[in-house]
């Protein structure tokens, strides 16, 4: 009896004490506030030398060029020192597709896991090249030749396959289509006078604009892919050249032209021109201003905007500009002061979603630089890829 009373009394005292003790000790493993060290210096940067919002897509040494977005915009392929790699946007997990001595100039995605590659023998800029397609990755660096004697390539009608310009003889070029399966399935009958230097398919996929260097002059032609009719829409004066390829948009065919580069490495300013729809007369492109120096251009996937690498005037910095073709509004989307942006015609690429452009740039150095990091982590000291958002700039421009 006495023991029962003792036990009851103990229970009465101990129960609230146990509850109190549980609260006091925190009921086991509660989440503790653990500080995470801030990002190391350099990792939290928002300006990598090209203005806010621009993000690097690659790091380390290597002369990178010709970016190409995968169909789902999750990966980017590019050429490094003549070989082809691709990588996820946010990781440095490079996947190499070719041998290192491949001589690649550009790569186009055929699917999420295969590429078409245009390569040319190194040191032979004037010689025709070869088009290859990659093989499944269980055969490392294996490619299959699709077409030889290729002068240049372009996306095919409806973004399926490719159109290639072929060297037929010294004075003429031919055109052919390579289907999505990687086989040449159509040869267009009319030959183009001269050597084709650039191609651009029309938004409706039925015609193609062709830039060609003739014996004495450059000309811009249009080939109707259905009827096979070929007509010349512009012929440049002797001593003038078309730089890169034309870009066919909703507002006409745009191209960059200027005095022919004589190879003395002097800066020859080139300007942007347009042949409006249903016209055969080129005109200075509206919206950019008469002092604008254009270096390379690429139409957006919807054909409503042009990405242009150029300068407001011959003395200003090179930047990436977006020209809204409906409003003729030109907006700089980079703020470059000391970077060297590549101006090759393949060195800028729209994402398939149309909200980003990839460009290639590096910092200018005049003397030796010493940095406290391994070379493969460095960014601006080598040509690297950058992703430039363009949606925000369109909103602010409007």
């Amino acid at each position, binding site marked *: 009896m006495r023991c029962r009373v003792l036990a009851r009394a103990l229970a009465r005292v101990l129960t609230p004490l146990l509850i109190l003790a549980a609260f006091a000790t925190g009921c086991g493993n509660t989440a503790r506030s653990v500080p995470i060290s801030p990002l190391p210096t350099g990792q939290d940067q928002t300006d990598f030398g090209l203005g806010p919002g621009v993000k690097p897509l690659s790091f380390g040494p290597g002369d990178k060029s010709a970016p190409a977005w995968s169909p789902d915009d999750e990966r980017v392929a590019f050429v490094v020192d003549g070989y082809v790699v691709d990588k996820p946007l946010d990781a440095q997990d490079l996947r190499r597709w070719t041998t290192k001595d491949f001589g690649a100039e550009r790569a186009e995605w055929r699917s999420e896991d295969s590429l078409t590659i245009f390569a040319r023998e190194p040191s032979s800029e004037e010689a025709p090249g070869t088009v290859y397609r990659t093989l499944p990755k269980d055969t490392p660096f294996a490619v299959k030749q699709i077409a030889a004697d290729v002068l240049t390539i372009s996306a095919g009608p409806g973004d399926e396959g490719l159109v290639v310009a072929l060297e037929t003889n010294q004075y003429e070029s031919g055109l052919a289509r390579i289907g999505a399966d990687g086989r040449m399935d159509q040869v267009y009958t009319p030959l183009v006078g001269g050597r084709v230097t650039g191609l651009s398919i029309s938004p409706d996929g039925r015609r193609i604009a062709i830039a060609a260097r003739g014996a004495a002059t450059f000309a811009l032609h249009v080939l109707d892919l259905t009827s096979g009719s070929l007509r010349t829409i512009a012929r440049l004066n002797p001593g003038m050249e078309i730089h890169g390829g034309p870009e066919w948009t909703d507002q006409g065919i745009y191209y960059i032209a200027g005095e022919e580069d004589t190879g003395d490495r002097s800066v020859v300013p080139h300007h942007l021109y347009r042949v409006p729809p249903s016209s055969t007369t080129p005109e200075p492109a509206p919206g950019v201003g008469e002092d604008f120096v254009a270096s390379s251009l690429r139409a957006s996937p919807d054909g409503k905007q042009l990405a242009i690498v150029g300068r407001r005037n011959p003395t200003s910095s090179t930047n990436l500009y977006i020209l809204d073709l409906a409003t003729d509004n030109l907006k700089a989307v980079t703020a470059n002061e000391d970077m060297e942006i590549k101006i090759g015609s393949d060195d800028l690429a729209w994402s398939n979603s149309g909200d980003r452009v990839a460009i290639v740039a590096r910092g200018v150095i005049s003397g030796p630089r010493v940095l*406290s990091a391994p070379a493969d982590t460095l960014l601006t*000291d080598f040509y690297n890829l950058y992703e430039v958002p363009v949606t925000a700039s369109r909103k602010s421009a409007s």
Partner: protein
Amino acid sequence: MKGVILWLSGAALAFLLTSGAFLLLANASGGPSEKSLRPDSPSAESGPALDLQLGRDYLSSLKQRPDQKLSIGVHNAGSQKLSDINVSVKVYSENTALSDVRYYRSSIKDLAAGETVTADFTLDLSFAGQNTDQGAEPARAIIEVRAATPSGVSSVRTAILPA
């Protein structure tokens, strides 16, 4: 009265034992430590104790040719003597298609706190500016210098020489 004191003592003892048991359980529950959440430092350097000095003026005199003399100052900026410091120099081209990489090594037996010792190298930089594509501009040369001790003190410097 004696019984009340006994009960109170028993209750206090039970409280202490229970609290102790809960505290033991809480600490033994295996939550991640603060240390494990810290991100790794991106730098290969372990601290400020070892410093590598590559004079820009000196680097400016280097040519992309054989037999180029490079002197690297290895400085102990810490408060303790460092021993068996390995200094390695890796010379290669910015052109990643070229597989030609040259390695050079030197060692420093002892380096007192605050002391600077010069490690001299004769480098072949003749290949570093080559490019496989004749149309492309000459490549930049890269000189990557690392110093490390067996105890884990290390430092890295990368010099980039314009073509």
